[in-house]
């Protein structure tokens, strides 16, 4: 039986093999080689692609380089969505590596937020953590923490520890699960407090979740949803979908049209959302759920 803590580690250490290619219309002084990288599912594109930027800037003139942005098959990728969510939503049923196109020109103002520094990513991340706690604990837990605790959550996402595999551009995370003082422990030392709830309750006040689908115009669905029903039963993932997005559930005698995906897997619909929230949230404390078409093969 898998220990629940193993789930936390599996989520934290999830990686997506990615190939970054420079957009063909970018002006280069010489040929730009693709750049391969294992992207952390739990992080953000602009936080983990400094090396990608440096790699391509080497073959470009300084004046042709403005803000970097990423695109997958014509869709600009929102850096403020976690990487794992972007992959699940856009590319989970396609062959690896994930092929991302890198741009330095024509920033799509209507589709993407600007990311002028790491501070912008930190501010966004912390705002999500605060919003999640507003739902879970009426902000009581996050507000009781000191500024240094907030900082520790953010520092846990920093990825300055990567090893380059000799003879390649491939990088792997250096912080092994077993080593002490690693980012995972650093992060969860604080985050565990955000996962607690009063002993007299059976869970959080409301579950922080967002449901995404590429085919709709709505950015995502986010509503108030209690982890425990009035009769004291734990609400499940199926209950959540029934309430906020019933179209995602396969009817009794119908064909399965959708996958309900979190961190690259389809949790059983019988899973209590309280458990999902505690174990499969992203570091921002939100459950980011993708509804994608069921693959046909």
């Amino acid at each position: 039986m898998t220990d629940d803590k193993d789930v936390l580690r599996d989520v934290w250490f999830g990686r997506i093999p990615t190939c970054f290619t420079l957009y063909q219309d970018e002006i280069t002084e010489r040929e730009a080689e693709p750049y391969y990288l294992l992207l952390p599912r739990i992080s953000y594109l602009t936080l983990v692609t400094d090396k990608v930027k440096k790699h391509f800037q080497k073959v470009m003139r300084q004046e042709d380089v403005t803000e970097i942005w990423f695109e997958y098959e014509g869709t600009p990728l929102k850096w403020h969505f976690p990487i794992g969510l972007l992959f699940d939503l856009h590319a989970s049923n396609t062959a690896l590596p994930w092929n991302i196109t890198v741009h330095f020109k024509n920033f799509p103002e209507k589709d993407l937020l600007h990311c002028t520094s790491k501070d912008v990513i930190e501010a966004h991340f912390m705002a999500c953590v605060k919003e999640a706690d507003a739902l879970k604990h009426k902000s009581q837990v996050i507000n009781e923490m000191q500024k240094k605790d907030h900082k520790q959550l953010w520092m846990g996402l920093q990825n300055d520890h990567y090893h380059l595999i000799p003879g390649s551009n491939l990088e792997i995370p250096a912080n092994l699960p077993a080593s002490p003082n690693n980012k995972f422990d650093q992060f969860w030392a604080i985050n565990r407090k955000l996962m607690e709830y009063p002993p007299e309750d059976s869970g959080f006040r409301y579950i922080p979740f967002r449901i995404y689908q590429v085919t709709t115009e709505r950015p995502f669905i986010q509503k108030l949803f209690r982890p425990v029903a009035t009769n004291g039963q734990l609400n499940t993932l199926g209950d959540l979908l029934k309430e906020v997005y019933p179209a995602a559930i396969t009817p009794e005698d119908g064909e399965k049209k959708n996958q309900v995906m979190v961190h690259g897997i389809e949790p059983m619909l019988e899973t209590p959302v309280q458990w999902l929230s505690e174990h499969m949230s992203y570091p921002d404390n939100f459950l980011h759920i993708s509804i994608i078409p069921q693959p046909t093969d």
Partner: protein
Amino acid sequence: MAEVEEQLPLSPQDGGRGECGEEPSDGGAAVGVAEAVPPSAGSPVTEEPAEDTKKKIDVLLKAVGDTPIMKTKKWSVERTRTIQGLVDFIKKFLKLVASEQLFIYVNQSFAPSPDQEVGTLYECFGSDGKLVLHYCKSQAWG
């Protein structure tokens, strides 16, 4: 994100979402809280209920610190209006320079993303039929 418009009301965003801009809300008129009603069993499998996105929600804007106070505080806003759209609107109304920063807070605790829709915020953080938003020229709550 949203285009800065020359005059109020703001023009429709992309995607065919019709907007008629913000309107001042009547002082005492309480807009009924539109709880999301789960679609009936007979509704089409692929569509979500569309009626939510047409309705407007009441927003109450409160100034923080020495930020100028808006003469009209209560506004009726389209659900699909983004925070950025609201920021642009407030800046125009207060005659602030476009380059000046304006921060918006929910529950006096977090600053939502500029692309967040006010309708979603209202669903999750609204009370007494309205969404209270605090605005500030400097960072108030981080």
